[in-house]
């Protein structure tokens, strides 16, 4: 099954890329943007077919490799 994960910098952590993209959008005339946060998207295809088990495994992957919890949050957004 396929599991999708989004990783973003924690809310309180500076997101330099998001900040600069926001400024650039503003300069191009998109003036009503409040904030831009940039993240990473992962689509993980696993042999595990039990959704609960698969989600748990992906959570573990997030904690151990995909995200550094010091500065990043992960969110599993989709399993199919």
């Amino acid at each position, binding site marked *: 099954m396929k599991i999708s994960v989004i990783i973003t910098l924690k809310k309180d952590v500076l997101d*330099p*890329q998001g900040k*600069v*993209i926001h400024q*650039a959008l503003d*300069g*191009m005339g998109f003036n009503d943007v409040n904030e831009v946060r*940039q993240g990473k998207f992962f689509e993980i295809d696993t042999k595990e077919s039990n959704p609960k088990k698969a989600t748990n495994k992906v959570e573990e992957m997030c904690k151990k490799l995909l995200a550094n919890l010091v500065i990043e949050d992960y969110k599993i957004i989709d399993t199919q």
Partner: protein
Amino acid sequence: MKSSVITFPGSNCDRDMDVALKKFGFKNKMVWHNDIELPKSDLVVLPGGFSYGDYLRCGSMASKSKIMKSVINFANGGGMIMGICNGFQILVETGLLPGVLLRNKYLEFICKNVFIKINDEQNRYFKNINNNVLELHIAHNEGNYFCTKDQLKEIEENDQIAINYCDKSGNIGEQFNPNGSINNIAGIFNKKKNILGMMPHPERMIDPYLSGEDGSIFFKNLINNLK
């Protein structure tokens, strides 16, 4: 000969390019990204660096700068525009050159000397150049040139591939390609060959005490061609 070097926020080879152009006889002006008008120029250079921190995609935000409108007009009128490294990335993001520059194959920034073979001399950049193999310097994280099959066919047919990575004697091959670029491409032209984008930095090779001197061959020839 008059040249203009455009400084974007985060450009960091703008001064080096200014030094090089002046050394070989150009009257160079620095132009700020927020300016609207380009000064009268025989050559416009988009220098290397990390415009807008290379955030989002390299060159993407710089390609939307105010000055780029005049740069595009200048290009469409046949003006000579050269993009080095980040400048090359900006040129592909504006669509003035085809393709994209992806992250290096081994996912590492690479700073070293490489050899390049000049493929086409029917243009004002390389016409009459003495050596068709030059040793130049690269320093980039995203120099892995990529384009679609159709685009590749087109640029090959139009002789738009300007330079390829090669060895000392000019043999082109994957083992000399530092970043995994398609067909070992190091630089390309637009169709009319007034626009050149390339990853190597000739401006870092203009003195025997630096990494080498082959950049001098390039600049000397360039100013002669423009005269």
